[in-house]
Every structure is written in structure tokens, then in C-alpha cells.
């Protein structure tokens, strides 16, 4: 192995580990929230409204006297579940359309790819906003809408993989031995094209977390009293002059979380893709 190869693989591993630790901490915070939260996240306390961070309330309290640290710990679970479920939906849709497009080619491919182009031309945030406001902003609707507007990248990746795999000998052999299209796609081709899908899914979670927090910040995402980082920030905006802690801490949590997923995704990309070992470190 060349020296630069070793160096860039080591660097990729450092990124992956750093990202992995951040994501792990997030999981822990979400799982342990009921145990380690100092207060009930929805408990209103009229005697300590907008209290600055202190030993009693480590990250202060909000405009209803609720403990910010407790709300943020519970918010981690919201952010995590929105991220995973919406990316799960996007990945499933993307794999299905990309596989069909790449496997069958011709008119099917042309139609699916035109649909992808159309979806990519819509200002997605407009679309999400419209749908969420017309439906009600339950967390399931948010997950579904984010998922259904972010599958296009995955479908393109899967299509390209399938185009290059479909004339490989093992695929032709499976076809010759009479395997059904579905079996060839699921059992033979999909497992061989998963690496880019996993990477794009990890990066997709980061994007989904950002969209959810933006929606909640605008007041059409996760609805109070259920805590989410975005809706704490929304209270932060209303109290910008007097309560900096409401704006600083939840935003920092979003930033670190998104960076964690991005580091993990980029690190995995570098590890999986041997073409990158020499060239772009």
C-alpha cells in the first residue's frame, strides 16, 4: 500500500469513528432520556420562567418554565426517529424506482428518470410546507412527507449500479436458470449495489434532521408540548433579547448531530470507495 493510501484510509476511519461516537451519544441520550432527565420535559413551572442556566437548571428554562435540558434530551429521540423513518421511506422508494429503471431500461427507464427530474425541479421545501400545512402536522406526516420528497438521489444511484450489473455473468446465469425478475433484483443485484445506498442514507438522515428542525422552528413541525430542538429554537426567537440559552443550546445540538451523520457518511464513503484511496484525500 502506498503511503498516501494508508494516510487517507486512516483519515477516513478517524472521520467514521468521530461521526459514529456522535451518533452513538445521540442514541444514548434518546434511550436514557426518561432516566437521566432532571425534570419532566412537559412540566410547566410558573415560578421559574426563562431562568438562566444554573445548577438547578443546567441549560435554563423556557418561556413556560420547562427545563431546557430535559426537553433537549427528549428532543433527541424525536430527531432520531424522524431521521431514520423518513430516510427509510426515501431509501425504499428510491431502491424500488431505481431498480426497476435500471433493470428494465428503455421506456420504463426514460419515464422514471423524467419523474426524477420533475421531482428535483420542485422547490422541495415549498412542497413539504404545503403538504404538512394541509394535512395536520403529526410526526408521522412529517416523516412521510420528508421521505417522499427525498428519494431521488437514491434512485439515481441504484439505477446506475443496476445498469452496470445487469450484464454481469452471474446475473445472466441467474436469468438463464429461470429465476424471476424479482428474485434477480432482490437476491442477486441489490446486495451488490448496497454500499452507495447506505452512504447516501446516512447523509440523508443529516438532511432530514435539518428539515424537521426547520419545520418545527416555523411552527408547522413537531407541535408543543412535545419537545423538539426546532420548536425550542422557535421560543428562542421570541425571547432573543432576554434568553440566549433558548437559542444557543438546541441549535448547537442540531449542528453537532448533522455533523455527526455527515462525518459518518463521508468516512464510510472513503472506506468503501477504493478509487478515492489514492486520489482525493
Amino acid at each position, binding site marked *: 500500500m502506498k503511503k498516501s493510501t494508508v494516510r487517507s484510509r486512516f483519515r477516513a476511519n478517524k472521520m467514521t469513528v468521530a461521526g459514529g461516537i456522535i451518533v452513538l451519544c445521540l442514541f444514548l441520550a434518546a434511550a436514557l432520556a426518561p432516566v437521566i432527565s432532571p425534570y419532566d420535559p412537559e412540566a410547566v413551572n410558573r415560578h421559574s420562567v426563562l431562568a438562566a442556566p444554573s445548577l438547578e437548571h443546567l441549560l435554563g428554562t423556557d418561556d413556560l418554565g420547562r427545563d431546557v435540558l430535559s426537553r433537549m434530551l427528549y428532543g433527541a429521540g424525536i430527531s432520531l426517529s424522524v431521521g431514520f423513518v423518513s430516510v427509510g421511506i426515501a431509501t425504499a422508494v428510491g431502491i424500488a424506482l431505481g431498480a426497476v429503471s435500471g433493470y428494465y431500461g428503455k421506456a420504463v427507464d426514460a419515464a422514471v428518470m423524467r419523474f426524477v427530474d420533475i421531482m428535483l425541479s420542485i422547490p422541495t*421545501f415549498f412542497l413539504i410546507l404545503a403538504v404538512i400545512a*394541509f394535512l395536520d402536522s403529526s410526526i408521522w406526516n412529517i416523516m412521510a412527507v420528508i421521505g417522499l420528497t427525498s428519494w431521488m438521489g437514491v434512485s439515481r444511484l441504484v439505477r446506475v449500479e443496476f445498469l452496470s450489473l445487469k450484464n454481469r455473468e452471474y446475473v445472466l446465469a441467474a436469468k438463464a436458470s429461470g429465476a424471476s425478475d424479482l428474485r434477480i433484483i432482490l437476491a442477486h443485484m441489490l446486495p451488490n449495489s448496497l454500499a452507495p445506498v447506505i452512504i447516501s442514507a446516512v447523509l440523508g438522515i443529516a438532511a432530514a434532521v435539518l428539515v424537521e428542525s426547520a419545520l418545527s422552528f*416555523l411552527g408547522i413541525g413537531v407541535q408543543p408540548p412535545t419537545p423538539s430542538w426546532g420548536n425550542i429554537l422557535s421560543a428562542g426567537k421570541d425571547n*432573543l433579547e432576554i434568553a440566549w440559552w433558548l437559542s444557543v443550546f438546541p441549535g448547537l445540538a442540531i449542528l453537532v448531530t448533522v455533523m455527526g451523520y455527515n462525518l459518518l457518511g463521508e468516512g464510510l464513503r472513503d472506506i468503501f470507495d477504493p478509487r478515492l484511496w489514492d486520489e482525493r484525500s
Partner: protein
Amino acid sequence: MFTYLTKKTLEMLITFVGITIISFAIIHFAPGKPTDVLTDLNPKITPEARAKLEKYYGLDKPVTTQYALWMKRVVMLDFGESFSSDHRAVWTKIKERLPITLYINIASLLIILAIAIPIGISSAVRRHTLYDKITTVGVFVGFAMPGFWLALLLMMFFGVHLHMLPVAGLKSAGFAEFSFSQKVIDILRHLVLPIFVSSFGGIAGISRYMRGSMLEVIRQDYMTTAKAKGLTPGKIIYVHGLRNALLPIVTILGLSIPGLIGGSVIFEQVFSIPGMGQLFYMSVMSRDYPLVMGILTIGAVLTLAGNLFADLGYAAVDPRTRR
């Protein structure tokens, strides 16, 4: 060149129709009727009056007929009348909000290009140096930064603590009495933070792509040839390299336009800027269907226009695409 343009125009038309169909379908299959909003304000309304309202808006006809009727009027820029109490034409409402959103987006695009391209080139050329490492960390932070949070922090710092910049709206109190130069300075002062926020993420993204693209180009044979000819390093990078490295960037810029337009909802809401994004937020919240459809359509047109510019830019940089 002619067939190229015809093909592009046809593709754009198909995309445009596709976008309007998707938007139309989503809005019309959503539960709740637009007349609910009107009737909620007036609880005494009779079922007959409600039916009359529905008929007036064509809501009793099948969705396909509604779409056809709507499309026929859209071609003549007639998006119908807003459901809100002022009953003004949708196009008039959009027209007065559109310019400010366009100015901010174009200004951010120019700033993104002006900052991101030099950063990308210089970190590609100085790969593995301290400078490259610092910009890489900066890019990771920029990628992950929620725009609205950055906006809050800047408002808190420059507005609340330092009292240096205004934090909301476009004009100060007493704007009407200002002299012309005072007016210009006042508006610019209001625009500094919004434009900074809306270009921040783009700078991170584009500079990263520029770096990757430049690294790809540096390895090519024609770069070695240029070096062998004895050209100066500056000439090699900026004349031979840049032109080729810019190609993928043009495509990515075209793709990033829907994101920029969508993002305007967030920063216009945070900074209380009376642009199209804020109008969209209000129209969605009040279920003003004609206005929502109108803005979605205009957003699609802007995106397609952006893509067209990207394609033309591509053709300008790379003669091969013109065939």
C-alpha cells in the same frame, strides 16, 4: 445548436406540466376544503351558501376539469383571485413580493460563486496543507449549520448585543423622510444578514465540489502537457484547469436553485422580509389554494429558468454539448 435548443425546450415543457400536476394533485387530495376557511370565519353560513362558494371556485367539478381550467388561465398569467379577505389577484400579490426574493437569491448566488470558487481552487492546489485542513473543517461546519440558527445567532450578536445592524424587515422607521442615499444605505443594512445567511450553506457546498472537481482536473494529461510546454502555474490552473473544473459546478448550481428558492421561506420568515417565501408561508397557513398554486408554479418557472441558464452556461464552457 437548433436541435439542442428544441430538445431542451421540450424537456422543460414536460417538466413544467409535471410539476403543476404534482402540485395540483397534492393540494386537491389533501383533506379539508378551501371553503372551510372562508366559512369558519362566518359560522352562520348556510349549506346553500357554502355550495355556492364551492361552485364559484369550481370545486364541485372533477379535479381534471379544475386542472384544465386552471392551466388555461395560467398561460395568460391569470392565477385567479386570492381566497383572503382582500380578494386581490394572485399574480398581483406575487408580483409585488417577487423582486425582493429574486434580488436576495441572485445576490447570494453571486456571493457563493465569488467566494466558493477561489476557496475550492486554492484548497485543491494546496492539498494536505494547513490551509486545506482549515477549509475542510469549515466546510463540514457550513454543511451542518441550520440556516435559521445561524440567523438567530447573528441577530443576537449584531442586533441585540452590538446594535450594529437591524434585525427585521427591509426599512427603518421614518424611511419615507430619508434622502435617496440614506434609503439605499438603510435597505443595504437590512439586507446584509439575510444575504449572508442564505449564501452560507452554498459557499460550503460549492467550494467542496470545486475542490473535488479541480483535483480531478489536475490529474489530466492536458495539464501535464501545459506544464511541459513551460506555462506558469497560474496560467495552467486558471486557463487550462478552471474551464474544465467549472463544468460540474455549473450543473450543481442549476440543481441547487430549488433549494435556494425553498430556503427563502425560512430566512424571510426569520428576518420578516416581505418576499415570496413569506407570502407562501402565509398562504399555506390560511389554505389560500390559488395563491399556493400560483407560488408553486412561479417557483417551478424560476427553477426551470435557472436550469436553462445552467445548460446555456454549460454550452458556453463546453462546445461539445452544443452538437
